[in-house]
Protein backbone atom coordinates (compact mmCIF):
# COMPACT_ATOMS: atom_id res chain seq x y z
CA UNK A 1 0.00 0.00 0.00
CA UNK A 2 2.87 2.35 0.81
CA UNK A 3 4.26 1.90 -2.70
CA UNK A 4 0.89 2.95 -4.12
CA UNK A 5 0.81 6.13 -2.04
CA UNK A 6 4.43 6.94 -2.91
CA UNK A 7 3.61 6.26 -6.55
CA UNK A 8 0.58 8.55 -6.31
CA UNK A 9 2.60 11.39 -4.77
CA UNK A 10 5.31 11.17 -7.37
CA UNK A 11 3.16 11.08 -10.44
CA UNK A 12 0.07 12.92 -9.47
CA UNK A 13 0.28 16.64 -8.84
CA UNK A 14 -3.43 16.91 -8.00
CA UNK A 15 -3.21 14.14 -5.43
CA UNK A 16 -0.16 15.68 -3.78
CA UNK A 17 -1.66 19.17 -3.50
CA UNK A 18 -5.01 17.76 -2.42
CA UNK A 19 -3.43 15.56 0.22
CA UNK A 20 -1.35 18.43 1.62
CA UNK A 21 -4.33 20.80 1.82
CA UNK A 22 -6.60 18.24 3.46
CA UNK A 23 -3.71 17.22 5.71
CA UNK A 24 -3.36 20.76 7.06
CA UNK A 25 -7.10 21.00 7.66
CA UNK A 26 -7.21 17.65 9.49
CA UNK A 27 -4.20 18.69 11.56
CA UNK A 28 -6.06 21.83 12.61
CA UNK A 29 -9.08 19.71 13.51
CA UNK A 30 -6.94 17.39 15.66
CA UNK A 31 -5.41 20.38 17.47
CA UNK A 32 -8.85 21.03 18.93
CA UNK A 33 -8.18 18.12 21.32
CA UNK A 34 -5.42 20.11 23.01
CA UNK A 35 -7.19 23.45 23.01
CA UNK A 36 -6.63 25.38 26.27
CA UNK A 37 -10.11 26.91 25.99
CA UNK A 38 -13.42 24.96 25.85
CA UNK A 39 -15.29 25.77 22.61
CA UNK A 40 -18.53 27.35 23.86
CA UNK A 41 -17.06 29.63 26.53
CA UNK A 42 -16.63 33.30 25.55
CA UNK A 43 -14.67 36.16 27.20
CA UNK A 44 -11.59 34.06 27.97
CA UNK A 45 -9.18 36.41 26.16
CA UNK A 46 -9.13 40.15 25.56
CA UNK A 47 -11.39 40.77 22.52
CA UNK A 48 -10.63 42.31 19.14
CA UNK A 49 -6.81 41.81 19.19
CA UNK A 50 -5.26 41.65 15.73
CA UNK A 51 -3.04 38.66 14.91
CA UNK A 52 0.22 38.91 16.90
CA UNK A 53 2.64 36.62 18.72
CA UNK A 54 0.38 35.72 21.62
CA UNK A 55 -2.63 35.15 19.40
CA UNK A 56 -1.41 34.11 15.93
CA UNK A 57 -4.92 34.54 14.48
CA UNK A 58 -6.05 37.40 16.72
CA UNK A 59 -9.08 37.29 19.00
CA UNK A 60 -12.79 37.69 18.29
CA UNK A 61 -15.19 40.32 19.60
CA UNK A 62 -16.63 37.65 21.87
CA UNK A 63 -13.30 37.30 23.61
CA UNK A 64 -12.34 33.97 22.07
CA UNK A 65 -8.94 33.03 20.55
CA UNK A 66 -9.66 32.81 16.83
CA UNK A 67 -7.08 30.03 16.33
CA UNK A 68 -8.42 27.63 18.96
CA UNK A 69 -12.00 28.49 18.09
CA UNK A 70 -11.19 27.65 14.49
CA UNK A 71 -9.82 24.20 15.47
CA UNK A 72 -13.21 23.30 16.98
CA UNK A 73 -15.08 24.84 14.05
CA UNK A 74 -13.17 22.87 11.40
CA UNK A 75 -13.42 19.64 13.42
CA UNK A 76 -17.19 19.89 13.70
CA UNK A 77 -17.56 20.86 10.04
CA UNK A 78 -15.40 17.88 8.98
CA UNK A 79 -17.31 15.46 11.20
CA UNK A 80 -20.62 16.80 9.90
CA UNK A 81 -19.49 16.49 6.27
CA UNK A 82 -18.20 12.95 6.86
CA UNK A 83 -21.43 11.92 8.61
CA UNK A 84 -23.63 13.17 5.77
CA UNK A 85 -21.34 11.66 3.12
CA UNK A 86 -21.22 8.21 4.76
CA UNK A 87 -24.98 8.17 5.46
CA UNK A 88 -25.82 9.17 1.91
CA UNK A 89 -23.36 6.49 0.59
CA UNK A 90 -25.60 3.84 2.19
CA UNK A 91 -28.68 5.08 0.35
CA UNK A 92 -26.80 5.77 -2.90
CA UNK A 93 -25.30 2.24 -2.85
CA UNK A 94 -28.64 0.63 -2.01
CA UNK A 95 -30.55 2.46 -4.75
CA UNK A 96 -27.71 2.27 -7.28
CA UNK A 97 -26.96 -1.44 -6.84
CA UNK A 98 -30.64 -2.43 -6.69
CA UNK A 99 -31.50 -0.46 -9.84
CA UNK A 100 -28.34 -1.61 -11.63
CA UNK A 101 -28.60 -5.32 -10.74
CA UNK A 102 -32.36 -5.83 -10.96
CA UNK A 103 -32.92 -3.62 -14.00
CA UNK A 104 -36.32 -3.63 -15.73
CA UNK A 105 -39.28 -2.01 -13.94
CA UNK A 106 -37.41 -1.71 -10.61
CA UNK A 107 -34.65 0.20 -12.35
CA UNK A 108 -37.08 2.48 -14.18
CA UNK A 109 -39.04 3.23 -11.01
CA UNK A 110 -35.96 3.88 -8.84
CA UNK A 111 -34.33 6.03 -11.49
CA UNK A 112 -37.34 8.27 -12.05
CA UNK A 113 -37.55 8.86 -8.27
CA UNK A 114 -33.78 9.35 -8.29
CA UNK A 115 -33.91 11.99 -11.02
CA UNK A 116 -36.54 13.83 -9.02
CA UNK A 117 -34.20 14.18 -6.05
CA UNK A 118 -31.44 15.41 -8.38
CA UNK A 119 -33.64 18.11 -9.87
CA UNK A 120 -35.56 19.29 -6.80
CA UNK A 121 -33.78 22.34 -5.25
CA UNK A 122 -32.87 21.16 -1.74
CA UNK A 123 -31.94 24.47 -0.12
CA UNK A 124 -35.51 25.80 0.23
CA UNK A 125 -36.56 22.48 1.74
CA UNK A 126 -33.70 22.59 4.24
CA UNK A 127 -34.63 26.18 5.10
CA UNK A 128 -38.22 25.03 5.60
CA UNK A 129 -36.94 22.19 7.78
CA UNK A 130 -35.03 24.68 9.95
CA UNK A 131 -38.00 27.01 10.09
CA UNK A 132 -40.24 24.28 11.44
CA UNK A 133 -37.67 22.76 13.83
CA UNK A 134 -36.27 26.08 15.03
CA UNK A 135 -34.35 25.66 18.26
CA UNK A 136 -34.92 21.90 18.48
CA UNK A 137 -32.85 21.60 15.27
CA UNK A 138 -29.89 19.35 16.05
CA UNK A 139 -26.83 18.66 13.90
CA UNK A 140 -27.81 14.97 13.79
CA UNK A 141 -31.28 15.82 12.44
CA UNK A 142 -29.78 18.12 9.80
CA UNK A 143 -27.23 15.47 8.82
CA UNK A 144 -29.99 12.87 8.50
CA UNK A 145 -32.18 15.08 6.31
CA UNK A 146 -29.27 16.11 4.10
CA UNK A 147 -28.23 12.48 3.71
CA UNK A 148 -31.79 11.56 2.72
CA UNK A 149 -31.82 14.28 0.09
CA UNK A 150 -28.23 14.13 -1.19
CA UNK A 151 -27.78 10.58 -2.50
CA UNK A 152 -29.45 10.86 -5.92
CA UNK A 153 -26.60 12.11 -8.13
CA UNK A 154 -24.20 9.39 -6.93
CA UNK A 155 -26.84 6.62 -7.04
CA UNK A 156 -27.04 7.06 -10.79
CA UNK A 157 -23.24 6.69 -11.15
CA UNK A 158 -23.28 3.53 -9.03
CA UNK A 159 -26.24 2.16 -11.00
CA UNK A 160 -24.44 2.53 -14.35
CA UNK A 161 -21.46 0.56 -12.99
CA UNK A 162 -23.68 -2.14 -11.48
CA UNK A 163 -25.61 -2.43 -14.73
CA UNK A 164 -22.47 -2.86 -16.81
CA UNK A 165 -21.07 -5.42 -14.35
CA UNK A 166 -24.26 -7.48 -14.40
CA UNK A 167 -24.06 -7.92 -18.16
CA UNK A 168 -20.33 -8.62 -18.34
CA UNK A 169 -19.47 -12.16 -19.33
CA UNK A 170 -17.07 -12.78 -16.47
CA UNK A 171 -20.07 -12.51 -14.13
CA UNK A 172 -21.52 -15.54 -15.91
CA UNK A 173 -18.21 -17.38 -15.75
CA UNK A 174 -18.23 -16.71 -11.99
CA UNK A 175 -21.80 -18.06 -11.72
CA UNK A 176 -20.83 -21.22 -13.59
CA UNK A 177 -17.77 -21.53 -11.35
CA UNK A 178 -20.22 -22.02 -8.49
CA UNK A 179 -19.64 -18.66 -6.80
CA UNK A 180 -22.51 -17.39 -4.65
CA UNK A 181 -24.10 -14.05 -5.49
CA UNK A 182 -22.59 -12.57 -2.34
CA UNK A 183 -19.12 -13.77 -3.35
CA UNK A 184 -19.54 -12.38 -6.89
CA UNK A 185 -20.64 -8.95 -5.65
CA UNK A 186 -17.96 -8.62 -2.97
CA UNK A 187 -14.99 -10.26 -4.71
CA UNK A 188 -15.63 -9.68 -8.42
CA UNK A 189 -17.62 -6.46 -8.61
CA UNK A 190 -16.50 -4.42 -5.60
CA UNK A 191 -13.10 -3.40 -7.13
CA UNK A 192 -15.13 -1.72 -9.87
CA UNK A 193 -17.66 -0.07 -7.51
CA UNK A 194 -15.19 1.18 -4.87
CA UNK A 195 -13.53 3.96 -6.91
CA UNK A 196 -16.86 5.59 -7.54
CA UNK A 197 -17.97 5.22 -3.91
CA UNK A 198 -14.69 6.73 -2.74
CA UNK A 199 -14.56 9.73 -5.05
CA UNK A 200 -18.30 10.48 -4.63
CA UNK A 201 -17.79 10.41 -0.85
CA UNK A 202 -15.24 13.20 -1.17
CA UNK A 203 -17.46 15.17 -3.57
CA UNK A 204 -20.46 14.66 -1.29
CA UNK A 205 -18.47 16.04 1.64
CA UNK A 206 -17.83 19.15 -0.40
CA UNK A 207 -21.55 19.43 -1.12
CA UNK A 208 -22.68 18.89 2.47
CA UNK A 209 -20.03 21.18 4.01
CA UNK A 210 -20.91 23.85 1.44
CA UNK A 211 -24.57 23.63 2.45
CA UNK A 212 -23.71 23.59 6.16
CA UNK A 213 -21.62 26.74 5.83
CA UNK A 214 -24.38 28.46 3.84
CA UNK A 215 -27.14 27.48 6.30
CA UNK A 216 -25.10 28.35 9.40
CA UNK A 217 -24.04 31.73 8.05
CA UNK A 218 -27.74 32.58 7.78
CA UNK A 219 -28.22 31.30 11.32
CA UNK A 220 -30.37 28.40 10.12
CA UNK A 221 -28.59 25.73 12.18
CA UNK A 222 -28.04 25.31 15.93
CA UNK A 223 -25.57 28.14 16.28
CA UNK A 224 -24.38 27.10 19.73
CA UNK A 225 -21.95 24.45 18.45
CA UNK A 226 -19.01 26.10 16.62
CA UNK A 227 -18.60 25.18 12.94
CA UNK A 228 -17.02 27.20 10.15
CA UNK A 229 -20.44 28.56 9.13
CA UNK A 230 -21.41 29.40 12.69
CA UNK A 231 -18.11 31.20 13.26
CA UNK A 232 -18.74 33.40 10.21
CA UNK A 233 -22.32 33.91 11.43
CA UNK A 234 -21.13 35.32 14.76
CA UNK A 235 -18.56 37.45 12.96
CA UNK A 236 -21.35 38.91 10.82
CA UNK A 237 -23.56 39.39 13.88
CA UNK A 238 -20.82 41.52 15.39
CA UNK A 239 -20.35 43.26 12.01
CA UNK A 240 -16.69 42.18 12.15
CA UNK A 241 -15.91 43.46 8.68
CA UNK A 242 -17.28 46.93 9.23
CA UNK A 243 -15.50 47.08 12.58
CA UNK A 244 -12.28 46.08 10.83
CA UNK A 245 -11.83 42.79 12.68
CA UNK A 246 -11.13 41.10 9.36
CA UNK A 247 -9.24 38.16 10.87
CA UNK A 248 -12.38 36.77 12.51
CA UNK A 249 -13.80 36.02 9.03
CA UNK A 250 -10.66 35.74 6.89
CA UNK A 251 -9.13 32.70 8.65
CA UNK A 252 -12.29 30.48 8.71
CA UNK A 253 -13.01 31.36 5.07
CA UNK A 254 -9.42 30.62 4.03
CA UNK A 255 -9.34 27.31 5.91
CA UNK A 256 -12.66 26.03 4.53
CA UNK A 257 -11.67 27.05 1.00
CA UNK A 258 -8.50 25.00 1.46
CA UNK A 259 -10.67 22.07 2.54
CA UNK A 260 -12.96 22.39 -0.50
CA UNK A 261 -10.12 22.56 -3.01
CA UNK A 262 -8.19 19.80 -1.22
CA UNK A 263 -11.13 17.38 -1.14
CA UNK A 264 -11.93 18.19 -4.74
CA UNK A 265 -8.38 17.54 -5.99
CA UNK A 266 -8.22 14.30 -3.98
CA UNK A 267 -11.47 13.10 -5.55
CA UNK A 268 -10.28 13.89 -9.10
CA UNK A 269 -6.90 12.23 -8.58
CA UNK A 270 -8.23 9.16 -6.76
CA UNK A 271 -10.94 8.62 -9.34
CA UNK A 272 -8.37 8.55 -12.13
CA UNK A 273 -5.88 6.39 -10.20
CA UNK A 274 -8.23 3.67 -8.94
CA UNK A 275 -10.21 3.58 -12.19
CA UNK A 276 -9.71 -0.03 -13.41
CA UNK A 277 -8.57 1.04 -16.87
CA UNK A 278 -5.61 3.04 -15.60
CA UNK A 279 -4.82 0.29 -13.06
CA UNK A 280 -4.65 -2.11 -15.98
CA UNK A 281 -2.20 0.05 -17.91
CA UNK A 282 -0.01 0.26 -14.83
CA UNK A 283 -0.06 -3.53 -14.63
CA UNK A 284 1.48 -3.40 -18.12
CA UNK A 285 -1.74 -4.61 -19.72
CA UNK A 286 -2.14 -1.68 -22.09
CA UNK A 287 -3.19 -2.51 -25.70
CA UNK A 288 -0.20 -3.80 -27.73
Amino acid at each position, binding site marked *: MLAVVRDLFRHHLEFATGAILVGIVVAMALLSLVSPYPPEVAWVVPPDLPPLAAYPMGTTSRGQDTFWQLTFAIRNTLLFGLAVALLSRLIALLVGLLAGYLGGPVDRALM*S*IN*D*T*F*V*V*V*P*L*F*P*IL*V*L*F*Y*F*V*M*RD*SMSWAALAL*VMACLGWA*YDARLIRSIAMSLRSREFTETAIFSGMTTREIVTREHLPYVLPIVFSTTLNNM*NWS*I*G*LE*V*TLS*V*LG*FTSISTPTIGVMIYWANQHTA*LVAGIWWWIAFP*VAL*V*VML*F*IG*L*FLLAVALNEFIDPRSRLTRMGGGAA
Partner: protein
Amino acid sequence: MAGYGSYLLKRLGQFLLVVVVGISLTFLVTHLTPIDPVEQTIAVAAAFGSTSPEAIDMLRRSLKELYGTEGSLLEQYLRFWARVAVGDFGPSLSAFPTPVSELIGRALPWTVGLLVPATLISWLLGNLLGGLAGYWRESRSLRFAGVVAMGLHPIPYYIVAFVLLVLFGYVWPVLPLSGGHRMNLEPGFTLAFLSSVLEHSILPALSLILVGVGGWFMGMRALVSNVVNEDYVVYAELAGVDERRILTAYVMRNAIVPQVTGLAMSLGAIFNGAIITEQVFGYPGIGKLLIDGVHAGDYSLVLGVATVSIVAVATAVLIIDLLYPLLDPRVKVG
Protein backbone atom coordinates in the same frame (compact mmCIF):
# COMPACT_ATOMS: atom_id res chain seq x y z
CA MET B 1 -42.05 11.26 -35.48
CA ALA B 2 -43.12 8.50 -33.11
CA GLY B 3 -39.79 8.79 -31.31
CA TYR B 4 -40.42 12.39 -30.30
CA GLY B 5 -43.93 11.64 -29.06
CA SER B 6 -42.83 8.99 -26.59
CA TYR B 7 -39.86 11.15 -25.55
CA LEU B 8 -42.22 14.07 -24.90
CA LEU B 9 -44.52 11.86 -22.83
CA LYS B 10 -41.65 10.55 -20.73
CA ARG B 11 -40.31 14.04 -19.97
CA LEU B 12 -43.80 15.30 -19.04
CA GLY B 13 -44.19 12.32 -16.74
CA GLN B 14 -40.86 13.16 -15.12
CA PHE B 15 -41.90 16.82 -14.74
CA LEU B 16 -45.10 15.87 -12.92
CA LEU B 17 -43.18 13.43 -10.73
CA VAL B 18 -40.69 16.15 -9.74
CA VAL B 19 -43.49 18.55 -8.83
CA VAL B 20 -45.48 15.95 -6.88
CA VAL B 21 -42.46 14.49 -5.03
CA GLY B 22 -40.97 17.94 -4.39
CA ILE B 23 -44.13 19.45 -2.97
CA SER B 24 -44.94 16.31 -1.02
CA LEU B 25 -41.49 16.69 0.53
CA THR B 26 -42.38 20.19 1.73
CA PHE B 27 -45.66 18.80 3.11
CA LEU B 28 -43.80 15.95 4.79
CA VAL B 29 -41.15 18.20 6.30
CA THR B 30 -43.77 20.48 7.80
CA HIS B 31 -45.88 17.62 9.16
CA LEU B 32 -43.30 15.15 10.44
CA THR B 33 -41.83 17.54 12.92
CA PRO B 34 -42.91 17.14 16.56
CA ILE B 35 -44.16 20.69 16.91
CA ASP B 36 -47.56 21.72 15.55
CA PRO B 37 -46.56 24.14 12.77
CA VAL B 38 -49.59 26.36 13.22
CA GLU B 39 -49.12 27.05 16.93
CA GLN B 40 -45.40 27.41 16.44
CA THR B 41 -45.93 30.04 13.78
CA ILE B 42 -48.45 31.92 15.84
CA ALA B 43 -45.98 31.96 18.73
CA VAL B 44 -43.30 33.45 16.47
CA ALA B 45 -45.74 35.97 15.01
CA ALA B 46 -46.79 37.06 18.49
CA ALA B 47 -43.10 37.35 19.45
CA PHE B 48 -42.61 39.92 16.70
CA GLY B 49 -45.72 41.68 18.04
CA SER B 50 -45.97 43.70 14.87
CA THR B 51 -49.44 42.44 13.92
CA SER B 52 -52.88 43.17 15.34
CA PRO B 53 -54.90 40.48 17.14
CA GLU B 54 -57.41 40.01 14.34
CA ALA B 55 -54.53 39.53 11.90
CA ILE B 56 -53.33 36.73 14.14
CA ASP B 57 -56.82 35.17 14.12
CA MET B 58 -57.05 35.40 10.35
CA LEU B 59 -53.60 33.88 10.03
CA ARG B 60 -54.50 31.07 12.46
CA ARG B 61 -57.63 30.25 10.44
CA SER B 62 -55.72 30.31 7.15
CA LEU B 63 -52.86 28.25 8.54
CA LYS B 64 -55.30 25.83 10.21
CA GLU B 65 -56.95 25.29 6.90
CA LEU B 66 -53.73 25.13 4.90
CA TYR B 67 -51.81 22.83 7.24
CA GLY B 68 -54.37 22.18 9.95
CA THR B 69 -53.72 19.04 11.90
CA GLU B 70 -57.40 17.90 11.96
CA GLY B 71 -58.43 14.94 9.85
CA SER B 72 -56.25 12.15 8.65
CA LEU B 73 -52.88 12.87 7.11
CA LEU B 74 -54.45 12.12 3.71
CA GLU B 75 -57.18 14.72 4.20
CA GLN B 76 -54.60 17.27 5.22
CA TYR B 77 -52.50 16.31 2.20
CA LEU B 78 -55.43 16.71 -0.18
CA ARG B 79 -56.47 20.03 1.37
CA PHE B 80 -52.84 21.12 1.15
CA TRP B 81 -52.76 20.27 -2.54
CA ALA B 82 -56.12 21.99 -3.22
CA ARG B 83 -54.62 25.26 -1.97
CA VAL B 84 -51.15 24.78 -3.47
CA ALA B 85 -52.51 23.84 -6.89
CA VAL B 86 -54.05 27.30 -7.27
CA GLY B 87 -51.04 28.99 -5.67
CA ASP B 88 -53.06 30.22 -2.72
CA PHE B 89 -50.73 30.19 0.32
CA GLY B 90 -52.89 32.53 2.30
CA PRO B 91 -51.85 36.01 3.51
CA SER B 92 -48.21 36.78 4.27
CA LEU B 93 -47.58 37.45 7.97
CA SER B 94 -44.72 39.91 7.59
CA ALA B 95 -46.45 41.93 4.84
CA PHE B 96 -49.99 41.40 6.11
CA PRO B 97 -52.59 41.29 4.43
CA THR B 98 -50.90 41.02 1.01
CA PRO B 99 -51.20 37.40 -0.14
CA VAL B 100 -48.00 35.38 -0.41
CA SER B 101 -48.62 34.70 -4.09
CA GLU B 102 -48.45 38.43 -4.80
CA LEU B 103 -45.12 38.82 -2.99
CA ILE B 104 -43.73 35.87 -4.92
CA GLY B 105 -45.19 37.24 -8.15
CA ARG B 106 -43.24 40.46 -7.61
CA ALA B 107 -39.97 38.71 -6.69
CA LEU B 108 -39.95 35.84 -9.19
CA PRO B 109 -39.13 37.94 -12.29
CA TRP B 110 -36.04 39.27 -10.51
CA THR B 111 -34.78 35.77 -9.79
CA VAL B 112 -35.53 34.59 -13.33
CA GLY B 113 -33.89 37.76 -14.70
CA LEU B 114 -30.73 37.01 -12.72
CA LEU B 115 -30.65 33.21 -12.96
CA VAL B 116 -31.41 32.62 -16.64
CA PRO B 117 -28.71 34.90 -18.11
CA ALA B 118 -26.13 33.97 -15.46
CA THR B 119 -26.68 30.23 -15.97
CA LEU B 120 -26.58 30.53 -19.77
CA ILE B 121 -23.41 32.63 -19.71
CA SER B 122 -21.61 30.24 -17.36
CA TRP B 123 -22.85 27.22 -19.36
CA LEU B 124 -21.77 28.65 -22.72
CA LEU B 125 -18.47 30.07 -21.42
CA GLY B 126 -17.61 26.89 -19.50
CA ASN B 127 -18.41 24.63 -22.46
CA LEU B 128 -16.56 26.83 -24.93
CA LEU B 129 -13.38 27.08 -22.83
CA GLY B 130 -13.61 23.43 -21.73
CA GLY B 131 -14.08 22.31 -25.33
CA LEU B 132 -11.07 24.29 -26.52
CA ALA B 133 -8.96 23.06 -23.59
CA GLY B 134 -9.97 19.46 -24.35
CA TYR B 135 -9.08 19.80 -28.05
CA TRP B 136 -5.83 21.79 -27.73
CA ARG B 137 -4.37 19.97 -24.74
CA GLU B 138 -0.99 21.78 -24.79
CA SER B 139 -2.12 25.39 -24.86
CA ARG B 140 -0.84 27.16 -21.73
CA SER B 141 -3.56 29.81 -21.51
CA LEU B 142 -6.40 27.25 -21.67
CA ARG B 143 -4.67 25.09 -19.10
CA PHE B 144 -4.35 28.18 -16.83
CA ALA B 145 -8.05 29.01 -17.36
CA GLY B 146 -8.75 25.42 -16.38
CA VAL B 147 -6.83 25.69 -13.11
CA VAL B 148 -8.68 28.91 -12.19
CA ALA B 149 -12.08 27.43 -13.09
CA MET B 150 -11.32 24.21 -11.21
CA GLY B 151 -10.07 26.20 -8.23
CA LEU B 152 -13.30 28.22 -8.00
CA HIS B 153 -15.71 25.36 -8.69
CA PRO B 154 -15.68 23.54 -5.36
CA ILE B 155 -16.10 26.76 -3.37
CA PRO B 156 -19.75 27.27 -2.32
CA TYR B 157 -21.69 30.19 -3.75
CA TYR B 158 -21.90 31.93 -0.38
CA ILE B 159 -18.15 32.31 0.03
CA VAL B 160 -17.51 33.49 -3.55
CA ALA B 161 -20.34 36.02 -3.20
CA PHE B 162 -18.94 37.12 0.15
CA VAL B 163 -15.42 37.58 -1.23
CA LEU B 164 -16.81 39.61 -4.16
CA LEU B 165 -18.77 41.73 -1.68
CA VAL B 166 -15.60 42.48 0.24
CA LEU B 167 -13.61 43.03 -2.94
CA PHE B 168 -16.06 45.46 -4.54
CA GLY B 169 -17.11 46.88 -1.22
CA TYR B 170 -13.77 47.85 0.23
CA VAL B 171 -11.09 47.37 -2.39
CA TRP B 172 -12.63 48.69 -5.63
CA PRO B 173 -16.03 50.24 -4.83
CA VAL B 174 -17.26 50.83 -8.37
CA LEU B 175 -20.39 48.64 -8.35
CA PRO B 176 -23.54 48.85 -6.21
CA LEU B 177 -23.35 46.30 -3.43
CA SER B 178 -26.98 45.58 -2.82
CA GLY B 179 -30.56 46.08 -3.95
CA GLY B 180 -32.14 45.56 -7.35
CA HIS B 181 -31.99 49.15 -8.65
CA ARG B 182 -31.37 52.73 -7.40
CA MET B 183 -34.00 53.63 -4.84
CA ASN B 184 -35.31 56.85 -6.38
CA LEU B 185 -36.02 55.35 -9.80
CA GLU B 186 -39.61 54.67 -10.91
CA PRO B 187 -39.84 50.95 -11.97
CA GLY B 188 -40.71 50.81 -15.66
CA PHE B 189 -39.11 50.15 -19.01
CA THR B 190 -37.15 53.40 -18.98
CA LEU B 191 -33.49 53.31 -19.98
CA ALA B 192 -32.36 54.69 -16.63
CA PHE B 193 -34.22 52.03 -14.67
CA LEU B 194 -33.10 49.18 -16.89
CA SER B 195 -29.44 50.25 -16.83
CA SER B 196 -29.62 50.54 -13.06
CA VAL B 197 -31.11 47.05 -12.83
CA LEU B 198 -28.33 45.76 -15.03
CA GLU B 199 -25.72 47.50 -12.92
CA HIS B 200 -27.11 46.00 -9.73
CA SER B 201 -27.22 42.50 -11.16
CA ILE B 202 -23.55 42.42 -12.22
CA LEU B 203 -22.10 41.26 -8.91
CA PRO B 204 -24.68 38.53 -8.13
CA ALA B 205 -24.49 37.30 -11.73
CA LEU B 206 -20.70 37.36 -11.64
CA SER B 207 -20.72 35.32 -8.45
CA LEU B 208 -23.00 32.68 -10.01
CA ILE B 209 -20.92 32.58 -13.19
CA LEU B 210 -17.55 32.26 -11.43
CA VAL B 211 -18.68 29.18 -9.53
CA GLY B 212 -20.66 27.64 -12.41
CA VAL B 213 -18.05 27.95 -15.20
CA GLY B 214 -15.60 25.50 -13.57
CA GLY B 215 -18.10 22.65 -13.53
CA TRP B 216 -19.02 23.02 -17.19
CA PHE B 217 -15.35 23.53 -18.08
CA MET B 218 -14.26 20.24 -16.57
CA GLY B 219 -17.27 18.34 -17.88
CA MET B 220 -16.75 19.57 -21.44
CA ARG B 221 -12.99 19.04 -21.34
CA ALA B 222 -13.47 15.41 -20.28
CA LEU B 223 -16.20 14.87 -22.90
CA VAL B 224 -14.11 16.45 -25.67
CA SER B 225 -11.00 14.43 -24.78
CA ASN B 226 -13.16 11.31 -25.25
CA VAL B 227 -14.92 12.48 -28.43
CA VAL B 228 -11.54 13.38 -30.00
CA ASN B 229 -10.73 9.66 -30.14
CA GLU B 230 -14.10 8.70 -31.69
CA ASP B 231 -13.97 7.14 -35.18
CA TYR B 232 -15.87 9.99 -36.88
CA VAL B 233 -13.36 12.59 -35.61
CA VAL B 234 -10.27 10.54 -36.55
CA TYR B 235 -11.87 9.90 -39.94
CA ALA B 236 -12.55 13.61 -40.52
CA GLU B 237 -8.93 14.36 -39.63
CA LEU B 238 -7.75 11.69 -42.05
CA ALA B 239 -9.87 13.39 -44.70
CA GLY B 240 -8.04 16.64 -44.13
CA VAL B 241 -11.24 18.44 -43.11
CA ASP B 242 -10.43 21.96 -41.89
CA GLU B 243 -9.45 21.85 -38.20
CA ARG B 244 -11.84 24.59 -37.13
CA ARG B 245 -14.70 22.71 -38.85
CA ILE B 246 -13.73 19.48 -37.05
CA LEU B 247 -13.63 21.29 -33.72
CA THR B 248 -17.07 22.84 -34.13
CA ALA B 249 -19.19 20.49 -36.30
CA TYR B 250 -17.69 17.17 -35.15
CA VAL B 251 -16.14 17.51 -31.69
CA MET B 252 -18.05 20.25 -29.88
CA ARG B 253 -21.36 19.44 -31.57
CA ASN B 254 -21.23 15.86 -30.22
CA ALA B 255 -19.66 16.64 -26.86
CA ILE B 256 -22.27 19.31 -26.04
CA VAL B 257 -25.18 16.82 -26.17
CA PRO B 258 -24.64 15.31 -22.68
CA GLN B 259 -23.97 18.81 -21.31
CA VAL B 260 -27.57 19.72 -22.07
CA THR B 261 -28.79 16.91 -19.81
CA GLY B 262 -26.13 18.03 -17.36
CA LEU B 263 -27.63 21.54 -17.36
CA ALA B 264 -31.09 20.15 -16.63
CA MET B 265 -29.69 17.98 -13.83
CA SER B 266 -27.81 20.82 -12.12
CA LEU B 267 -30.55 23.49 -12.22
CA GLY B 268 -31.61 22.54 -8.71
CA ALA B 269 -28.09 23.20 -7.40
CA ILE B 270 -27.75 26.44 -9.37
CA PHE B 271 -31.07 27.60 -7.89
CA ASN B 272 -29.71 27.00 -4.38
CA GLY B 273 -26.76 29.19 -5.31
CA ALA B 274 -29.05 31.95 -6.55
CA ILE B 275 -30.95 32.04 -3.23
CA ILE B 276 -27.84 32.61 -1.15
CA THR B 277 -26.30 35.01 -3.67
CA GLU B 278 -29.47 37.13 -3.63
CA GLN B 279 -29.24 37.24 0.15
CA VAL B 280 -25.59 38.38 0.16
CA PHE B 281 -26.24 41.17 -2.36
CA GLY B 282 -29.73 42.02 -1.11
CA TYR B 283 -31.07 41.26 -4.59
CA PRO B 284 -34.93 41.37 -4.48
CA GLY B 285 -35.57 37.84 -5.80
CA ILE B 286 -37.53 34.98 -4.20
CA GLY B 287 -34.30 33.81 -2.56
CA LYS B 288 -34.07 36.93 -0.46
CA LEU B 289 -37.83 36.72 0.09
CA LEU B 290 -37.41 33.19 1.47
CA ILE B 291 -34.69 34.15 3.94
CA ASP B 292 -36.42 37.37 5.04
CA GLY B 293 -39.56 35.24 5.49
CA VAL B 294 -37.68 32.91 7.85
CA HIS B 295 -36.29 35.80 9.88
CA ALA B 296 -39.81 37.29 10.08
CA GLY B 297 -41.29 33.90 11.07
CA ASP B 298 -43.64 34.23 8.07
CA TYR B 299 -44.56 30.55 7.70
CA SER B 300 -46.85 30.72 4.66
CA LEU B 301 -44.32 32.85 2.76
CA VAL B 302 -41.51 30.36 3.38
CA LEU B 303 -43.72 27.44 2.37
CA GLY B 304 -44.94 29.37 -0.69
CA VAL B 305 -41.43 30.18 -1.88
CA ALA B 306 -40.26 26.58 -1.31
CA THR B 307 -43.18 25.25 -3.35
CA VAL B 308 -42.79 27.80 -6.15
CA SER B 309 -39.05 27.13 -6.30
CA ILE B 310 -39.70 23.46 -6.93
CA VAL B 311 -42.26 24.16 -9.65
CA ALA B 312 -40.02 26.82 -11.25
CA VAL B 313 -36.97 24.53 -11.39
CA ALA B 314 -39.08 21.62 -12.65
CA THR B 315 -40.47 23.83 -15.44
CA ALA B 316 -37.00 24.99 -16.45
CA VAL B 317 -35.81 21.38 -16.53
CA LEU B 318 -38.80 20.43 -18.70
CA ILE B 319 -38.00 23.24 -21.16
CA ILE B 320 -34.37 22.09 -21.45
CA ASP B 321 -35.45 18.46 -21.86
CA LEU B 322 -37.80 19.48 -24.69
CA LEU B 323 -34.95 21.34 -26.43
CA TYR B 324 -32.64 18.29 -26.11
CA PRO B 325 -33.92 16.50 -29.30
CA LEU B 326 -32.92 19.53 -31.36
CA LEU B 327 -29.31 18.69 -30.56
CA ASP B 328 -29.52 14.90 -30.73
CA PRO B 329 -31.38 13.58 -33.84
CA ARG B 330 -31.20 10.04 -32.47
CA VAL B 331 -33.93 10.99 -30.02
CA LYS B 332 -36.21 13.05 -32.25
CA VAL B 333 -36.28 10.82 -35.28
CA GLY B 334 -36.57 7.63 -33.28
